[in-house]
């Protein structure tokens, strides 16, 4: 695939016997703009996660006459804002949009930033991130690391994040290492519920720290 993805895409056909066909299409400026706007609109829908508007930093083009089942995007970047007003940015090496009735955006080598209150920042990196708009869920897998600007850090293998009735719920499975300037926690999974303000660590758990 060409480096310049603005006008390049990979189409995976659903027709039998045609698994994948790479088509490079150069459209007229008018058509390109029209499809670009359409794709941006789709992506905006995908990333909202009940959170508010977001936008791709770079547009993409698609074939004329049909919307492909699957669109691969090189180095996608998504900007948005949570319903709370906090801004976020998703950047990835590669992204895939799949319309399987549930609107999925899959990102490889994800690097996400969330601006929190009082100038605090959370950075999340993962090998894979999957956003499913129909379920309001985000899955992160493979070397998931969440770092808070205050020095706290969570390392784990898989995290599922979704919108609950009153807040955000995050559930991590597998080994998790939580590091704080004063304490280090190892557990076999965790859950965080912002509505109930409960953090649950699953055992076996070890916490090592310095009280002072």
């Amino acid at each position, binding site marked *: 695939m060409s480096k310049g993805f603005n006008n390049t895409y990979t189409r995976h056909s659903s027709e039998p016997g045609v698994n994948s066909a790479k088509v490079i299409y150069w459209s007229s400026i008018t058509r390109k703009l029209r499809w670009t706007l359409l794709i941006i609109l789709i992506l905006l829908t995908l990333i909202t996660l009940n959170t508010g508007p977001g936008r791709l930093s770079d547009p993409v083009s698609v074939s004329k006459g049909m919307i492909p089942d699957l669109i691969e995007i090189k180095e996608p970047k998504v900007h948005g804002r949570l319903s709370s007003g906090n801004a976020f940015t998703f950047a990835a090496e590669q992204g895939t949009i799949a319309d399987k009735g549930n609107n999925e955006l899959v990102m490889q080598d994800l690097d996400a930033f969330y601006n929190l209150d009082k100038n605090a920042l959370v950075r999340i990196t993962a090998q894979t991130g999957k956003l499913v708009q129909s379920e309001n869920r985000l899955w992160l897998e493979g070397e998931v690391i969440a770092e808070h600007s205050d020095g706290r850090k969570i390392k784990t293998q898989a995290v599922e994040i979704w919108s609950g009735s009153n807040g955000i719920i995050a559930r991590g499975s597998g080994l998790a290492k939580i590091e704080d300037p004063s304490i280090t926690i190892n557990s076999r999974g965790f859950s965080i519920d912002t509505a109930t303000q409960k953090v649950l660590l*699953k*055992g076996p758990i070890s916490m090592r720290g310095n009280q*002072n």
Partner: protein
Amino acid sequence: MKVYGAVILLFALTALTHPSNAERFLPSGDSSISLDAADSVEWDQKKRTFLAAGKAVVSRGDLILKANKISANYRDGKDKKIEIYQIIAEGNIEIKNKEDRATSNFAKIDTDTGSIILSGKNTSYWNKNIKLIANEEIEYHTNDQRAFARGGIEISTASEVIKAEEVVYDLEQQFAEVFGNIRITRGNNVLLGAMASFDFKSGISRISGSNTKNPSSSGRVRGVISPQGKP
């Protein structure tokens, strides 16, 4: 009788929450605290509680607290750091440091009142010199330096076994009082009474047939003294 040995461990308990007291028991510079749990740890930020379940172990230096469940209540301390003011442990509790060990089914440590309560079945304390068993509870108040043990008490040393219903010990005065159905056994010698006192400063001990806590009870001190050595 050296009841004061029992309070060493109770002092040590406060090391979990009072770093100043910890200096007495922990190596200098070692203030690290650790927690292990087999099942789960829950942090409720609304209720301001921690709950560790399943073979929970809290340790700091040589001091170790084990229980089926350990919960802690906290509040904001200096610099908004978490300040734990109460710890409650339940089920198969074991507390130990280098020299002392205690067991119980329930423990409550309150740093505001400076009290430590061990209660339930298997409430006991021992070190190399003494073993204390209490069917109801062992209680220690750091503020006034007093310790209590209640219910079916048995104190064993290398030379004596003392049974009673209640023990009150004043650490500052080094003075202990023992109440109710007292039975002091030393070898083949047995003394029975209702109340006894032990002054560790003067070395004077007294045993009485009357219990000041129960005026209706009056009686005499009885004893069986066996001659020393073979006849």
